[in-house]
């Protein structure tokens, strides 16, 4: 396909500039996003057995809930009943005192179970937030601060999502003239830049539909409040947008008349026979509008949430209040919006799809990493005309250092805080604060090192550090088995072992990357930012 050269030039600049300005943010978003695909296994890997309360038999759930509501009035406002025992489910019922939907690192949480005498046994804990923090890193790129009840990072990522869409279209325009010839052409060999460009192109084109979905959903996730407000103002006006049905009762319900949970579960199971009921979130029990949000799972259906689908049920009448998020019963509108969520979260095919999304996410991260490196190399090429060897401009060197430091730093930081979850568990007052300090310390140190030593040398060091941190994950598990005196722990469920194995595979990849990079740094062209060897006149 032929495209006018002036149009190509414009899209070349557009692609470069949106890429350069958002590349590092999107790298963190995609890397952490890939990890959120396995948020639950990560939580299961890290979860400390010290916090565990035993689960209860299904027959005792009714008693557990009625005892809980009787003895702890705070739970009447909101509590969660977990049905499936997992390492990261520390107790069958969990609730918090006071309400907040923001992430609270030192938020007090209560959990309870029935002891062997059938009495309620409750305790206050600091919940482990590792999974939530990975999710936060994914949504905000680690940018701190809030604005009007929303994280600033979420808005910044929303803007990055807009620019990322522009980058996708301009990248596509650039590729169109040579699409047929270049597609699937991966030319290794002397011309390193050609190889990186080919890899950038093939991953970009092959995962284009995924990237379009991600960029559009990110924009919606960041700005949906404004969109709804605007629609209410301009389009709907007097028309109702969301009208919850008027409450049928005048007097608030009393928890004594609550329907037995076993009956609620049975009703949900009847409405969704193909699904596994995972947990029940009881809300506002002593009001005129009580409800239970039931999380359900199935690998066969698209699911609304990042982990599960949902059904809303009335805790006193057992009436199903909302089945619009249940794929087998939803209408066309709900089904379509559910699929938008599912397309972002990768919740439409169980673990197989999670792995696909994991690799698509890592592929995306590679796209931004390689994009930045390509820009840096093309600067050298541009300057080279008329000069024997290029003296790298300061901004190019800084850009290279920032790319290396931020990208590899976020990986090291994440791995380091995963390890901290086990090694610092006994020493830390609040493990969640330890996660944050360790992440930011490692992240900032990596960036500092990249600027101090220059991108070339630092990239080798930081890649080795990535490899070391990755290998430390299965090593920690192994040590905990071999040396019980360390008071570490390791879980043997397939999910937890999967984390160990994946980290091992990642370590091998990092070693490979470090060796390749070292070779280039020591033997590649001297005037590249990727060379450790100085030019004679420098």
């Amino acid at each position, binding site marked *: 396909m032929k495209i*006018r050269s*002036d*149009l190509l030039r*414009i*899209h070349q*600049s*557009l692609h470069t500039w949106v890429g350069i300005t958002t590349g590092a943010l999107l790298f963190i978003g995609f890397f952490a996003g890939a990890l959120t695909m396995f948020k639950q296994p990560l939580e299961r890997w890290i979860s400390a057995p010290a916090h565990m309360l035993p689960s209860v038999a299904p027959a005792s759930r009714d008693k557990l809930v009625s005892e809980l509501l009787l003895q702890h009035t705070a739970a009447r406002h909101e509590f969660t009943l977990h049905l499936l025992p997992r390492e990261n489910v520390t107790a069958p019922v969990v609730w918090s005192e006071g309400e907040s939907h923001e992430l609270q690192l030192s938020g007090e949480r209560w959990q309870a179970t029935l002891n062997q005498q059938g009495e309620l046994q409750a305790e206050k804990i600091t919940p482990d937030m590792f999974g939530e923090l990975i999710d936060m890193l994914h949504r905000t790129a680690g940018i701190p601060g809030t604005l009007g009840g929303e994280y600033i990072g979420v808005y910044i990522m929303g803007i990055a999502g*807009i620019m990322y*869409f*522009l980058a996708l*279209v*301009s990248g596509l325009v650039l590729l169109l003239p040579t699409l047929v010839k270049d597609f699937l052409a991966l030319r290794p060999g002397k011309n390193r830049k050609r190889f990186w460009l080919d890899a950038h192109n093939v991953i970009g084109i092959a995962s284009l539909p995924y990237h379009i979905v991600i*960029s*559009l959903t990110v*924009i*919606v996730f960041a*700005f*949906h409040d404004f*969109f*709804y407000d*605007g*629609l209410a103002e*301009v*389009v*709907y*006006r*007097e*028309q*109702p*947008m*969301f009208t919850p049905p008027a409450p049928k009762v005048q007097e608030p319900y009393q928890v004594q008349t609550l329907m037995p949970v076993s009956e609620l579960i049975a009703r949900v199971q009847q409405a969704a026979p193909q699904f596994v009921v995972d947990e029940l979130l009881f809300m506002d029990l002593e009001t005129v509008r009580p409800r239970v949000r039931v999380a359900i799972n199935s690998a066969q259906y698209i699911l609304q949430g990042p982990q599960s689908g949902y059904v809303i049920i009335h805790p006193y009448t057992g009436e199903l209040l909302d089945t*619009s998020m249940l794929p087998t019963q*939803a*209408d066309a*509108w*709900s089904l*379509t*919006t559910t699929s*938008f969520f599912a397309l972002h979260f990768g919740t439409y095919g169980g673990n197989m799809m999670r792995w696909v999304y994991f690799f698509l996410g890592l592929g995306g991260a590679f796209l931004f990493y390689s994009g930045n490196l390509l820009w840096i190399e093309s600067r050298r090429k541009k300057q080279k005309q008329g000069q024997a060897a290029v003296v790298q401009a300061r901004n190019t060197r800084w850009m290279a250092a920032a790319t290396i430091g931020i990208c590899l730093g976020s990986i090291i930081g994440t791995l380091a805080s995963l390890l901290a979850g086990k090694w610092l568990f006994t020493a830390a007052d609040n493990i969640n604060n330890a996660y944050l300090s360790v992440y930011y310390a490692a992240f900032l140190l990596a960036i500092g090192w990249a600027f101090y030593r220059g991108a070339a040398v630092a990239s080798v060091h930081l890649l080795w550090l990535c490899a070391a941190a990755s290998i430390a994950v299965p090593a920690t598990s192994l040590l905990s088995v071999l040396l019980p005196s360390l008071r570490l722990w390791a879980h043997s469920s397939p999910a937890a072992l999967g984390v160990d194995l994946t980290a091992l595979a990642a370590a091998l990849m990092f070693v490979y990357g470090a060796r390749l990079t070292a070779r280039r740094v020591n033997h590649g062209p001297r005037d590249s930012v990727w060379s450790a060897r100085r030019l004679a006149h420098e």
Partner: protein
Amino acid sequence: MTINARVKKLPIRADWWSKTLCGALLGFTLAFALTGLFAWLGPGGISAPHKVQFVMWLIAPLWMLAFTACYFFRSGLQAFIWLLLANGLAYTGLFSVNGVLR
């Protein structure tokens, strides 16, 4: 050579600021109006249950399409003129639909 043919030969101007501003603002308002038209005239009309969320989801893709389209115009001025026109049409449609169907 006709004027038309001569204009076609002129290179496309980059006009970064004006095109970006045009896409960000007029592209957004256009997306809003088109979304509104869909909300009223699309299947089920304005009060179809569960439709609101889908309608909201339409804004982002329409906005992004309009945004990228701006960079294909010959100049920032052209982008402004065409998007203003499209906005005018879309909002005329939306407000008349709003008045008639209410």
